[in-house]
């Protein structure tokens, strides 16, 4: 009888179309192997704390105090918590009516949205309106809310970079829209060009698709490139002339590992461009507590900021947010602390800076170690991880390997990654999970394993890769790519 109630055939087709490789086949296989006792190094998802990165001390102190306010009444609390954490906790609790356990405003606590607005103002040099900032249970929920508002049906297309973080393709599939790819050029450091964008849009329109929005991920995921100011201007100009909403995924803005292209927000560039575009171009920018040097993925904290979205549309977006009542309050506090961290002179400042710098400097070193490690393999070419948390090496696979993969019913990069997993315990995500040009293969790994483990991991990879190439390459001593 239950087969009548809900069988596979009668499921919403859109759900069936969804793919999310980050926790797909490779991850499931890795989890199986782990249960069987194999040591697995999970580099499939940007999850720093799972690979040993420690949480920053100060925010955990503040949130713990907010969680258990009776501590604040205890005279011994100062034995366990520094005075500035205690003060901050009291401060945040005063913003709530009922502490962490009450639904807040559906947009998030106003005072925290003000902190976010102040942060944006300091970062960009332009004011930001707290009423247009919505805190969400992670940036992903915000992305989904916006895409759901935009997509009316399969006639609506969203321009998404390829390779992309597959939240975008998954959400577009779920909401019944059309995925309109624009290809990043690997040989040009994963650059994008307005000409390419124009071509993608023209092709979509020729198929009868109305292109509604464009996604940029800056710094890129999985590609890591940091967009230049000129690039951002081109993108903004393009969206303006094609009438697209720009969705700026900026969750990795704190993760920058080179100095030539520091992070610059799409909003800042837009405002710098002046009117009329700065008053008319519709932009939604996303940020999170999951990445950066905070890495607080498990809290599920994020926000989006709306620029030039008409007030009636904002009302509708508010309405949908209100159905879920409110984002989780502890994560809102993490967000407040992230945008308004300890300042010079605060008791916890030195420790906070030491912990933060330690993480960022180590990430920068690991980005380099990994890129160089991959590039030392003859069949691998890897663009430098300029930002974000990933390495996305291109791996040339010999024809016989591709054949064997086909026989096994797998895409070539999936085949390779499964073998890598079985041999080394390194759990990556095949490039096909992010999109890539036909016949070109990649894998995505994170740069997050502990620094002391990095060399061993790269050695392990190289050993596997050499053996794989020995097995499948027709001409040993294969030429460098």
């Amino acid at each position, binding site marked *: 009888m239950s087969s009548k109630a809900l069988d596979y055939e009668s499921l919403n087709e859109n759900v069936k179309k969804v793919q999310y490789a980050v926790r797909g086949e490779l991850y499931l296989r890795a989890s199986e192997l782990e249960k069987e006792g194999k040591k697995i190094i999970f580099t499939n998802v940007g999850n720093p704390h799972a690979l040993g990165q420690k949480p920053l001390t100060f925010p955990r102190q503040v949130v713990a105090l907010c969680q258990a306010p*009776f501590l604040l009444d205890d005279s011994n609390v100062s034995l366990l918590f520094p005075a500035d954490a205690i003060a901050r906790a009291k401060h945040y609790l005063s913003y709530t009516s009922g502490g962490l356990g009450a639904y807040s405003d559906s947009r998030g606590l106003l005072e925290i949205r003000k902190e976010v607005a102040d942060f944006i103002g300091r970062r960009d040099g332009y004011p930001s309106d707290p009423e247009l900032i919505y805190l969400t249970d992670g940036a992903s929920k915000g992305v989904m809310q916006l895409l759901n508002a935009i997509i009316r049906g399969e006639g609506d297309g969203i321009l998404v970079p390829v390779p992309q973080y597959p939240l975008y393709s998954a959400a577009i599939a779920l909401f019944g829209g059309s995925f309109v790819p624009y290809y990043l050029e690997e040989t040009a450091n994963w650059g994008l060009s307005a000409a390419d964008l124009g071509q993608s849009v023209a092709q979509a329109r020729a198929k009868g698709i109305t292109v509604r929005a464009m996604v940029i991920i800056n710094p890129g995921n999985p590609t890591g490139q940091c967009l230049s100011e000129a690039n951002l201007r081109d993108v903004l100009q393009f969206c303006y002339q094609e009438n697209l*909403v720009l969705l700026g995924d900026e969750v990795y803005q704190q993760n920058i590992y080179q100095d030539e292209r520091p992070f610059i927000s799409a909003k800042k560039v837009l405002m710098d461009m002046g009117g009329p575009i700065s008053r008319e171009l519709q932009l939604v920018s996303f940020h999170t507590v999951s990445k950066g040097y905070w890495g607080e993925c498990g809290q599920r904290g994020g926000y989006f900021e709306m620029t030039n979205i008409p007030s009636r549309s904002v009302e509708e977006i508010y309405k949908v947010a209100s159905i879920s009542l409110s984002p989780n309050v502890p994560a809102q506090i993490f967000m407040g602390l992230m945008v308004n961290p300890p300042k010079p002179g605060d008791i916890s400042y030195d420790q906070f800076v030491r912990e933060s710098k330690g993480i960022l400097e180590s990430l920068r070193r690991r980005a380099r170690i990994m890129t160089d490690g991959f590039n030392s393999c003859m069949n691998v070419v890897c663009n430098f991880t300029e930002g974000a948390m990933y390495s996305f090496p291109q791996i040339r696979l010999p024809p016989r390997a591709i054949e064997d993969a086909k026989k096994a019913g797998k895409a070539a990069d999936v085949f390779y990654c499964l073998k890598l997993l079985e041999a080394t315990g390194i759990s990556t995500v095949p490039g096909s999970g992010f999109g890539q040009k036909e016949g070109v293969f990649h894998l995505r790994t994170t740069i997050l394993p502990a620094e002391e483990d990095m060399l061993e991991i790269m050695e392990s990879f190289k050993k596997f890769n050499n053996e794989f190439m020995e097995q499948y390459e027709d001409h040993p001593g294969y030429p460098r790519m």
Partner: protein
Amino acid sequence: MDPTPLTVDTINPKVLKCEYAVRGEVVTIAQRLQQELKDKPGSHPFDEILYCNIGNPQSLGQLPITFFREVLALCDHPSLLDKSETSGLFSVDSIERAWKILDQIPGRATGAYSHSQGISGLRDAIASGIEARDGFPSDPNDIFLTDGASPAVHMMMQLLIRSESDGILCPIPQYPLYSASIALHGGTLVPYYLDEATGWGLEVSELKKQLDSAKSNGVSVRALVVINPGNPTGQVLSEENQRQIVEFCKKEGLVLLADEVYQENIYVPEKQFHSFKKVARSMGYGQEDIALVSFQSVSKGYYGECGKRGGYMEVTGFAANIREQIYKVSSVNLCSNISGQILASLVMNPPKIGDESYQSYCAERDGILSSLARRAKILEDAFNSLEGVTCNKAEGAMYLFPRIRLPRKAIKAAGAANTAPDAFYCKRLLNATGVVVVPGSGFGQVPETWHFRCTILPQEDKIPAVASRLTEFHKGFMDEFRD
């Protein structure tokens, strides 16, 4: 040139269509009044706005359960467990429980994304809790931890609704998450009416009638939503009633969506909560017989932890290939917030006899529940004493849903103000007393009947004032509009 990308003309029409009155128009007005009071004290005939629109206990003074918060604080900042001073500030069993939980989290990393269904050890604990509650086993692999029960409901609607030809049977009155979610996912809400005259009774004959009517209109009905205890109606189903419902779903091939978030809010000795899973299993029905999704939350009960966004759904009777799809959709969001997951496991596994915190936990829990029962009764009596107002008992949940019989003059005045009559009443009530309630039209009601939903949550010492302000307002209103 296409119209500007995101305007009300180009926004997804399903977004336009959905409504959610719990934080709708009346609440927006209330927020404005609250700001006016702040800027100009004395500018209104009341000192404060009393939000009785939303089941948000801690915002109105209810205190959290100490044991739960102790454990959560320790899990938020595990290095506390390494300090000797901690034992002076935290109970022994909260420290033990925190250790136990942290040992179930790889690397004790509460800041890491977990398994997309939630941390495995916590799901084990929840499954044990379900088994202890029901007397029937629960599989941790059937449990999906979510950011509150609402996202789980959305996920099921997404799965079930292919087009507007797919219908979901929903009670009228209902908690408008259901109508909103169905609209957002492009489906059709198939209403079944609860009978106000019989304490909001749910008749299977009514279910059948509405099902057949929908079918004849070309709607494929996929599921039945039952909210037990009811929201906004507060009735607790009898076991016999529940058996009939299970039988009905089995017979008609419907997925049973059991919203059981108020399972710990029961205020009358003659009723008890029985989960639909327990009822189905006691009837001898297993996974092959009935597809059942049960929703629970940390937001209600006696814990009232709305702001944490914790909850789960237990999914039983679905084939493996469907569960894979549910897992897949869950994985796109990676996981629910860890603190909420931990709290869900605590709610389903509170302190037991012999634990250091047991007595204080019981005192806190019973204090809250008995107070809720008293407040429910006082307000119910107050409403019933008003002219033209009848109010069914709140056997459970957190709300009263009185029916107001509005005089014709009031209905006309509402029409002139371009407002539904119950919204007109609620706005007048707000402006006169500062009390915020939600018009019945936000929940659905038999046409030409009017209601509003009021929570029982203001602190006990405020209840007499709420009751008297309401009484005074109502008298004035009737004096103005009486036929």
